[in-house]
């Protein structure tokens, strides 16, 4: 139940946390979204949007860490694949 999409916060309108809205850019399409659940959101943050509400501010450092882990895994696999290729006549 779960179609939530990331977008970049372009601007914020309103003072009242409950009715604060922001214009969010989803990659060429901009829609006004409620920021009621993300009082900490600032312009240029990336937010996750579901049915017109931002549910969270996406954490870039977590994302970077996750991809570093993946790259490491990919490199380990590549090292092993290279080793296998060098030790065998057949291309896997």
């Amino acid at each position, binding site marked *: *139940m*779960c*179609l939530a*999409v990331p977008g970049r916060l372009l601007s914020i309108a309103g003072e009242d946390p409950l009715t604060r809205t922001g*214009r969010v850019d*989803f*990659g*060429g*399409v*901009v*829609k006004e979204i409620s920021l009621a659940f993300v009082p900490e959101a600032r312009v240029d943050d990336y937010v996750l*949007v*579901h*049915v017109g509400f931002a549910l969270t501010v996406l954490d870039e450092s977590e994302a970077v860490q996750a991809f570093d882990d993946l790259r490491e895994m990919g490199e380990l696999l590549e090292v092993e694949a290279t080793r296998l290729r060098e030790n065998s006549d057949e291309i896997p």
Partner: protein
Amino acid sequence: MTNDFAMSCPLRAGDQGIIELAHGGGGRAMERLLDTIIRPAFAEPMLERRHDGAVLAIDGPIAFTTDSYVVKPLVFPGADIGTLAVNGTVNDLAMCGAQPLYLSVGFILEEGLPIATLGRVTASMREAARTAGVRLVTGDTKVVDRGKADGMFINTAGVGRIVAQAAIEPSSVRPGDVVILSGDIGRHGISVMAAREGLAFETMIESDCAPLAAPVLDLIRGGIAVHCLRDLTRGGLASALVEVAEATDFGIHLEEKLVLVCAEVNAACELLGLDPFHVANEGRFIAFVPRADAEAAIRLMRRHAVTNLATVIGTVTDGPAGQVACRGPFGVSHIIDMLNGEQLPRIC
């Protein structure tokens, strides 16, 4: 402004700037509407003759088609119901391998429609007809009660002269043929959705509504063996592919990465939970040509602005019959099918 106490005096109809029932009544009010709005907008000599019908002479086999247009809202980024009504019928004729020549126009107007809107739509139709090289030679106007027509409905029927020698239809398709898609998909459906009340979002996307006869005729006259053509409309790319596949005994295999979707259409689809393959288009088509002709066909199409992104997206295979399969980004294929009804935004 005087009230309705003065009875149905024909001289008053039209003074309020909206369409009234009298405008469809066949009397003075209607004549005035035709004289002041419709005929001047179309600027067509045949209409000035005021016949019940247009008398035309066309050599050789003709193609004949009709379509009705009920789009809501009437006006959206890049086009309106009038542009749609002309280009839609022009394109159906082009898909038959015909040079579009003459169109009829039937208006069903809702009581209360602003006359300025009718003026805008008729002006669009004139422009579209001029761009497409067709003439709007006959027509009809009716008015229905408030609430019965979403503003306006338009029917257009068209005739064209067949230019292709061989039959352009599914039965001409052969395994090994390539499938060419004339451009990027999804612009029309998204532009209409963006204009709908309640869904509104800011975007630069405009409808791709455009006439396709010029590149099609170029292909035919350029000696390309065009086996089949199909323009993409309400059901999107998916419906067009499935219709052709099911009408043949063959299958179609596509590469998803070759189907162009612009970033804005992609973003709108992600936001609303839509699949671009099922989003409406109004200025795109698929062409089935022999593999040997593919390169020449692409070159010809890319000379026209409306088809300058033409790309081979797949091939016709031996089977399974009627199956359209699409290979995705991870190398796994999935089936492309028609939807049961209209694609709706989802949250799930």
